[in-house]
Each structure stands twice: as C-alpha cells, then as structure tokens.
C-alpha cells in the first residue's frame, strides 16, 4: 500500500505537458459567380487573422496556380489573380483558386473582390464566396 502511494506521488509530481493548440490543415475554395458572363480575369484578396491560421499553399483551378506574392505564405493575407485569353471561358459559379491553411484557432476568412473582367476587358462584379473543407 505504501509502495502504491509512493508511485502515485511520483506521477503526481511530473508536470503535465503544456497545452498545444490543435493544428488542422484545411482548404478554402474561392468561387466567383459571374451571373452567366464568361470570366476572363479576376483578382481577389483573402484575409484572416494570422494568429488563427496561416497560408501554406495555393492551387489554381487549372494546372498552374494563380498569380500570388510568395511573401503571403505563412501569413494571413494574400492577393490572388489570374486571367485567360482562351476563347472558351468558364461562367456561372467558377472555382478560381484553392488556398491551403494551417489553422490553430477559429479563423474567419474574408474575401474581397479587387477586379474582374469579361472577355474584351469589360469590368465585372462577380459575387465571391468561400467553401472551407478538411481539418475535422
């Protein structure tokens, strides 16, 4: 009995490991809804609190990523942009980019449309929305 109490006392004296925030890797898909007009060019800013999530990667809708500043990686703010001079362009609700985040808190992601254009350069005002996935 005394031995058991000693063992328990020994365990009780070992400090508990520090509480680490849970880290999750998530993706945030960025959509632009053009209302039926073909989307030739777009530029969107995406923001979150960098203490809650950090940008770790960027993918485009196609084989190559959109334009972005590499300085955005490991931070909470990024400007994404791309264009196409192809004859066939997407319209409707268009997936334009996928951003990978490392979350450590409960971030709020805020997209802001900076520019968009239809073929020929006419300015558009598509609706931007986000879909977060993963990290469960």
């Amino acid at each position, binding site marked *: 009995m005394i031995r058991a109490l000693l063992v328990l006392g020994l365990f009780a004296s070992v400090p508990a490991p520090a509480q680490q925030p849970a880290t999750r890797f998530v993706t945030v898909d960025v959509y632009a809804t053009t209302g039926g007009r073909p989307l030739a*060019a777009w530029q969107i800013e995406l923001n979150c609190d960098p203490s809650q999530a950090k940008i770790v990667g960027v993918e485009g809708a196609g084989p190559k990523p959109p334009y972005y500043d590499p300085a955005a990686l490991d931070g909470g703010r990024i400007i994404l942009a791309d264009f196409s001079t192809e004859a066939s362009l997407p319209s409707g609700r268009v997936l334009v980019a996928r951003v990978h985040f490392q979350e450590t808190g409960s971030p709020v992601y805020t997209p802001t449309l900076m520019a968009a254009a239809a073929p020929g350069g006419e300015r558009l005002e598509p609706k931007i929305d986000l879909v977060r996935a993963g990290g469960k």
Partner: protein
Amino acid sequence: MDGHPDLLALDALRAGEGSAEERAHASQCPECRATLEGFRRLAAGLAPAPLGVPESVKQQILARTRPSPRRRSWRPLAAAAAVLIGLGAVWVARSARPSLPGDVDRNGRVDIVDAYALAVRLRSGEKMDLIYDVNGDGRVDERDVEEIARRSVSLR
C-alpha cells in the same frame, strides 16, 4: 534675302535645318533670334512629350499667323500659337500616356485586368507603344504581361 524667314523656316532652323541664308539672317536679326529662342525653350519644355501636333492643324494655325505684305503684326499671334501648340501637345501626350506604369486601361490603378488587356493586344498582333514596356527591357512582350500580373498581386 527678302524680309524675315517665316515661322516654319525659323522652326526648321531650331531643328538644325534650313538654308545658310536663313541661318545667317537669324543670327543677325534680333527679332528672328528672339522668336528662335522662344521656339527652343518651347521645344525643351516639350521634350518628354514625343507626340506632335498634326501637320494639318499646325498649317492652319501658321496660315493665320503669316505676316501680311503690309503689316508685320504676326509676332503676338505667333506667340499665342506657340503657347497653344505647346499646351495642345502636352495635353495630347498626357492623355495618351498612362499615369502609372502598367496601367493599360488607364483607370488609375494596376491590376490583373491590365495584364489581361495587354495580353489580348499582344495576341492580336497589335504593335504596342514602348510606354507598355513595364520591365524596361526595350520590348513589349509576354514578360511585361507577367510583370504587370506580379505587381497586381504584390503585398508591398
């Protein structure tokens, strides 16, 4: 030489052209020398603006300022015409040149639509003015499109 050289002749002298006779006259005549000096100052002020006034407009203005055989009252008109030509050239040059490097659609900011607009023009084979040489390599090509796109997403 009979009388003063006209304004076109004086402007030709300013540009290093004109006949030896006109040059000799201009070097001796205080009035012509003053006009020539005015043209030189005007040309120096317009140096950054390579666009000129259409020849037809220039001819019309100068036709109104040519001296009549009886009176030599063209000097104030010539000065006014020179000022108008100068202001017109500056205005034309400013309106044709984007205020920001890479601002192809001249909306006052550089964004991805400018890169798109330049890419479309290059793809159509349109000959592009060097004002769109954003990266300063002496050519307007796909690298300038890339440069505009990069600037549009820069966080700095």
